[in-house]
């Protein structure tokens, strides 16, 4: 990073910055990878000037929850391909989960990830496992991992079933001010479930995953955080009951935060038998198999329409703090199998922001709330003081969006190595046209 970064003047864009409560036409001057000045009609000598008339300028989006698959599963995704997908989707920072092979449960793996990330266009933030090999038995060396660059701890994909161990993990992590990102799931109730335990499961004989499987563990996790007076973050809320638990926890003063994924905000269990889920899909891109399409399979599963509505409400009222993608790339042949044998998970980096813009269009979120949920709060949850806002002195991480641009989701055009999106053929409005990281344009449409 020794070479100098040309200064950049962004003119006439609509700056939307929740942290500064700004929403209006401002010029932004970026120097040395930082925000130097914000103002109206800035007259400065810049190496380069971009006229952003008609475009939105947002603090770079931050994804708390992605799976980059490297090391170990490079055929699904690499740190480089995942980061390319991220900037194409407007994400300037992505936090990657620990379930690689080997698992990121020691400083060597964390350092490897950061080393690989040097060539990546987005900022990659390694999340370390909570327990060794994610076996739920022994804590990782948290101090060593934090020193190596881990930003948080998570056994994502698994819960930590032993409550005493989870207690100690919460306590010990608080020493470093690093959050635990908890995947909440009662394993016995989850059992061999593949979709939400509801009408579709009942009618189609698919093994169900009750909402309860998630809620019982959310309750336990919040109770521990409350008792210990430490922060905790709940991954991918999907049920009304889970929302209520977080809402009540917050009301009691528990330092609990929560995220929701775009797929849980847009799709219900109906997608298992009709992936289009009421959407008019592009005829040329429409998947051949809409019923039992394995891109409707994720954990937690798609819930009911009432849960989708509740998630949107909770996102609007702040019960849900962040939109996170749970970007989970899988290779095509891994998903082209029997429904119950298919791996859980879908990709999300390249569709999340456009879907969030649709929430704005549908009146669920204001533009400022969108920025709060996708940049400001994720930065706060991870304790990243240099981003999440475009105030003077912050990192020059920006996402520039054309709110009117119409496009169709075509996985063949993804930067991600994976194609497993449930949104193939969706017509979306609002698209990332430029992504800037540390003052450099890393993506241009």
């Amino acid at each position, binding site marked *: 990073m020794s070479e100098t970064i040309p200064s950049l003047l962004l003119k006439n864009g609509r700056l939307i910055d929740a942290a500064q409560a700004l929403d209006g036409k401002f010029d932004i001057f970026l120097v040395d990878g930082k925000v130097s000045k914000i103002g109206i009609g800035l007259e400065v000598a810049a190496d380069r000037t971009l006229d952003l008339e008609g475009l939105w300028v947002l603090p770079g989006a931050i994804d708390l929850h992605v799976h980059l698959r490297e090391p170990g599963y490079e055929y699904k995704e690499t740190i480089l391909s995942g980061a390319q997908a991220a900037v194409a989707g407007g994400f300037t920072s992505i936090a990657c989960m620990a379930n690689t092979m080997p698992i990121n449960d020691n400083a060597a793996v964390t350092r490897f990830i950061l080393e690989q990330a040097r060539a990546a266009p987005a900022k990659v933030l390694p999340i370390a496992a909570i327990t060794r090999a994610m076996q739920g038995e022994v804590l990782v060396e948290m101090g060593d991992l934090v020193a190596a660059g881990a930003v948080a701890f998570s056994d994502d994909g698994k819960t930590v079933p032993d409550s005493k161990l989870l207690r100690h993990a919460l306590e010990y992590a608080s020493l470093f001010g690093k959050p635990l990102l908890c995947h909440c799931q009662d394993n016995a109730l989850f059992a061999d479930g593949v979709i939400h335990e509801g009408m579709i499961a009942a*009618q189609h004989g698919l093994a169900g995953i009750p909402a309860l499987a998630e809620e019982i563990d959310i309750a336990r996790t919040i109770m521990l955080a409350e008792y210990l007076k430490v922060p905790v973050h709940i991954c991918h809320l999907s049920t009304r009951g889970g929302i209520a638990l977080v809402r009540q926890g917050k009301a009691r003063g528990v330092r609990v935060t929560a995220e929701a994924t775009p797929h849980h905000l847009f799709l219900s269990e109906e997608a298992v038998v009709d992936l289009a889920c009421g959407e008019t899909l592009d005829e040329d891109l429409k998947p051949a*198999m809409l019923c039992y399409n394995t891109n409707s399979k994720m954990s937690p599963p798609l819930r009911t329409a009432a849960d989708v509505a509740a998630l949107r409400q909770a996102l609007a009222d702040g019960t849900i703090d962040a939109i996170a993608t749970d970007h989970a790339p899988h290779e095509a042949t891994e998903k*082209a199998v029997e429904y*119950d044998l298919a791996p859980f998970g879908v990709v999300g980096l390249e569709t999340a922001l456009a879907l969030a813009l649709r929430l704005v269009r549908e009146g669920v979120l204001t533009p400022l709330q969108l920025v709060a949920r996708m940049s400001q709060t994720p930065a706060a949850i991870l304790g990243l003081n240099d981003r999440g806002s475009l105030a003077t002195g912050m990192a020059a991480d920006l996402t520039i969006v054309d709110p009117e641009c119409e496009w169709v989701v075509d996985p063949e055009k993804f930067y991600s190595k994976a194609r497993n999106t449930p949104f193939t053929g969706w017509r979306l409005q609002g698209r990332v046209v430029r992504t800037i990281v540390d003052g450099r344009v890393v993506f241009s449409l």
Partner: protein
Amino acid sequence: MGFRRKDLLGTRDLSADEIRTLLESAESFKEIAERPLKKVPALRGKTVVNLFFEPSTRTRTSFEIAAKRLSADAVNISASTSSVVKGESLLDTVDNLQAMAPDIIVVRHKSVGAAHLIAGHIGASVVNAGDGANEHPTQALLDLLTISAHKKLGPGLRVAIIGDIAHSRVARSNIWALTTLGITVRVCAPPTMLPRGLENIKGVEVCRRPEEALDGVDVVMMLRIQLERQDRLLFPSLRDYAAIFGLNRRRLALARPDAIVMHPGPMNRGVEITSDVADSEQAVILSQVSNGVALRMAVLFLLGGQGHE
């Protein structure tokens, strides 16, 4: 009128017209079983592959006899002899089959949607002979064919289905087919084997106790209880299950006097059904088996005996 599908994957999306066409054709095929020469040349030169990933003697044999009576070449492939054990994916297996140019593939698989996956992948017609706990359409249709010999199929008829509803594809296919014809279906199972939400299906009544389900019904369908469910803590013991849910003379007396008793087999005598009931005048369990061949002939004929564009 008519049946113009490439595949028969379930009864869920069949119209009443399609169901009646299948039953009427099957009715005609019943006659062939009574001929001295039980073979017609309708599917001569066609290849029917029975692709069974789950062990099944009854259904596979029934399809095999049906195919042979239609003069088709029937080939049986079972999971134990196929390359599945070597880790080949389902679609790879199907691609290999496709190279042998089958006209109809009859598939049974433990995964819900396996037949749909295959049907979407190849040009041959696919008959679902059971996909997990989802559907087993030919069983439901042969059950309707059996009922129709004794009762008029339509509104006013009441059918009780008793047993492990949650894990039963036979129950689901019957629920769809029966309710499509306007028939009332009462389902009854231990709460551990009753999926939540069935009561929302139009025409379905959920009963807590078999006595309630049997009261005044025209048809009683008992489902096989699988011992492995006991290992998964869904019921305490077969003895307990038999005592509460088993069909015996006393319980059967609650149904209409002319009620018929059905069972998709294989039966656990003394568990879900007592021997005296299974062997009684009211039991039509063996007609189900013979109707199975006629019904499957009709299905193979209607799928295979038409030109696809």
